């Protein structure tokens, strides 16, 4: 089972490589270089802050978009192109297929995240800035955020079309960053129903703000390791539920 899982994962990575996802890193690098030449008319301290914010922010935006794109189309594409016939008919359970394909996506995203981090940290070093611990934490936790988004994309694309999956997953991403605000807003309402709905939304949507450590990196706030671990565990747990959902739906599907 481990071997089959490995084969699926590495194959997913190979697919991304052959489809030239590395271009994403090139575009990111170019954008980063360009942005640093645009910001000139400020003090040295502000310059460094802006540089770090732009770097981490650009990384997040690029990879989140890529994660949505990769995950929401994957299962649908396999079914539409009928490539799935040759894989699911092998002695591989559909659960293993889903988990292996997701792992392939996460490996691709991890490698890209790593490459971007190297570019970003090198740039910092070139401007004589130190790479701080909160920055590393923010980059690492971005991967957990990508995992949550990808698992939502998989759950959606286990039954919906690529377009619907992409739109819903994008919506979940934005709402997920606001879920705490939605909760607070609803709890201030007089109406019990709205309070109840707010709570419901809060628990169903992923709390992505909890996985976002970019503000801490920006203000150089060191977060205790325990908090980081708890947040990571929350993200992985949420992704696990989404994967279970995807497996549940996918295992009952006809491929025709």
């Amino acid at each position, binding site marked *: 089972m481990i*071997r*089959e899982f490995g*084969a*699926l994962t590495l*194959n997913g990575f*190979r*697919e991304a490589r*052959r*489809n030239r996802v590395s271009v994403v890193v090139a575009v990111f690098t170019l954008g980063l270089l360009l942005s640093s030449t645009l910001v000139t008319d400020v003090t040295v301290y502000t310059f460094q802050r802006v540089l770090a914010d732009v770097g981490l922010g650009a990384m997040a935006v690029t990879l989140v978009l890529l994660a949505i794109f990769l995950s929401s189309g994957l299962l649908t594409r396999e079914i539409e*192109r*009928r*490539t799935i*016939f*040759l*894989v*699911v*008919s*092998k*002695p*591989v*359970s559909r659960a293993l297929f889903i988990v292996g394909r997701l792992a392939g996506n996460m490996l691709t995203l991890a490698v890209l995240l790593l490459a971007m981090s190297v570019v970003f940290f090198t740039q910092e070093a070139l401007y004589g800035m130190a790479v701080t611990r909160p920055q590393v934490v923010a980059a690492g936790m971005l991967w957990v955020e990508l995992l949550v988004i990808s698992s939502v994309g998989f759950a959606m694309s286990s039954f919906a079309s690529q377009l619907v999956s992409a739109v819903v997953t994008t919506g979940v991403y934005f709402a997920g960053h606001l879920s705490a605000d939605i909760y607070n807003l609803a709890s201030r309402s007089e109406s019990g129903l709205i309070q109840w709905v707010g709570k419901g939304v809060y628990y169903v949507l992923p709390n992505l703000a909890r996985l976002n450590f970019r503000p801490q990196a920006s203000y150089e706030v060191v977060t205790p390791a325990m908090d980081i671990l708890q947040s990571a565990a929350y993200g992985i747990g949420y992704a696990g539920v989404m994967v279970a959902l995807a497996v549940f739906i996918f295992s*009952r599907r*006809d*491929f*025709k």
Partner: protein
Amino acid sequence: MSSSLPIEVRGLAKTYRLGFWMNRQVRALQGLDLEVQPGQVYGLLGPNGAGKSTTIKILMNLVQASEGTARLFGLPPTDEEARRQVGFLPENPAPYEYLTGAEFVTLAGKLAGMSGHELDQRVKEVIGMVEMERAAKLQIRRYSKGMIQRISLAQAIVNRPKLLILDEPTSGLDPVGRRQVRDLILAERQRGTTILFCTHIISDVEALCERVVVLVGGRRVREGSVRELLSGQAPVVEMTVEGLSLGQLQGFGHELTYAQDFGDRVLLRTGDQAAQLLLQQTLQAGGRVTQVQPTRYSLEDLFLDALKEARHGTVGGEIS
């Protein structure tokens, strides 16, 4: 030990539900029974939409049956252990096109639990068997239809399956390729592999199969060993007559299974007994018999007869 049959299908039915409210139905299969013994080469025949691919998809766990049971070696198709012993070639196969042929066959082997040196050897071997050595390092997106068919066949046999399920294995192949696939099926049979395959090429079935089933509209209309199905039929004689019209010939009162007036000659087919009389009567009436040929009742005749019996149209399942 009926439970260890390679394929055992009982009362299998599949209804596809369509439309937004799932209120339209296509009955693709209606109560199919099928038994394939070890080592048999079994042919699945039927017009377009008869339910051949649906049967195969149910066996390969791609589609769930609405009713009835399907068993591979006594296990349900959902069981991975059942599928471990099976090689499968779908209709219009679609391998990952970003992989090369060799990479794809390797992936198939890995997913079937093979690894290491043994896998590498076997991949080379099966690629040789389908004559794809030259294109093995080319990405599949650059393949022609027949090349895709060949590489997909290679991935089906890579794990030395005990049962091969092939959906139209010779579609898209050139004449040489068709002969090669036939030889490959024969070689697999020599090894003792059980084979279920469906095709529209009846000569392939005649050349390869011991048993056949004919499906029409999701129902079984003929089943049995090829020899029995064909030998039970009375011999037929084909004659070409000149100098008499079709009307005159029909006037003799024999039952003609086939008759065609070409103006200068009439081509007809009739039973053995009738042919003897017809021959005499034709000569007496001043006609010339330019050709007399006993013809075997072929699988094609069987197939066409089976279709004739289907009262409604033959293409597709029942739609309601």
